[in-house]
């Protein structure tokens, strides 16, 4: 199960909406082994594409090093699909390389409905998991 703060959930969705129709991507770091997504980090989509995303390699190095220095790991790796459902594509599965991460998919295909789903992707196998949003709802 992915347990995530409302404020971080909102930031991920806002990023996905803002970059629509291109795919948005980023990570949420947390203390190693804690499984707690705490530090939201928006990443550039180096592809700037509606159908593909890739972290910029130098930005990724900087962010991964920052996590290393703080004894953090990528607890959540998120990206958006802008015309299809929030389910990992074959491409997503073949490139998934963080077996400890929750892979979050947000679909922005509907302007007024949020699709926010989370998966484990290990050795090419996808397992969906429940998402629990904790904390106060800041929306009016």
């Amino acid at each position, binding site marked *: 199960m992915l347990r995530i703060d409302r404020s971080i959930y909102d930031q991920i969705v806002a990023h996905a909406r803002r970059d629509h129709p291109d*795919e948005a*991507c980023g*990570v949420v770091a947390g203390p190693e082994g804690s499984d707690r997504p705490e530090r939201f980090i928006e*990443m550039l989509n180096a*592809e700037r*594409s*509606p*159908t*593909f*995303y*890739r*972290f910029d*390699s*130098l930005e*990724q*190095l900087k962010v*991964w*090093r920052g996590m*290393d220095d703080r004894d953090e*790991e990528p607890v959540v*790796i998120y*990206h958006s*699909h*802008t*015309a*299809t459902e929030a389910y*990992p*594509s*074959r*491409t*997503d599965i073949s*490139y*998934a*390389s*963080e*077996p*400890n991460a929750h892979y979050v998919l947000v679909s922005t295909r509907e302007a007024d409905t949020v699709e926010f789903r989370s998966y484990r992707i290990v050795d090419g196998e996808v397992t969906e998991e429940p998402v629990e949003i904790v904390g106060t709802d800041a929306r009016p």
Partner: protein
Amino acid sequence: MAIEVRIPTILRNLTDDAKVVEGKGDTLAELFTDLDSRYPGIGARIVENGKLRRFINVYLNDEDVRFVGGLEAELKDGDNVTVLPAVAGGSL
């Protein structure tokens, strides 16, 4: 000559969980051959058919090696190398 190599989580099962290992070589290609001799299997996770795998990022002193000569990039004592799987995907 010693080159420090940072290993990503997904390859640490090949390095007895070590985050950082040391290797040697005059070029990156030689370095990965050297690492593979002590951590069997690691070479093939980084290099394929004599080229860097497309979705593996390798950095030499914080430069993406694709821009500084790829596997032929020359190494000197004290250099540091970081290996990171690219984070990528898409909806197709």
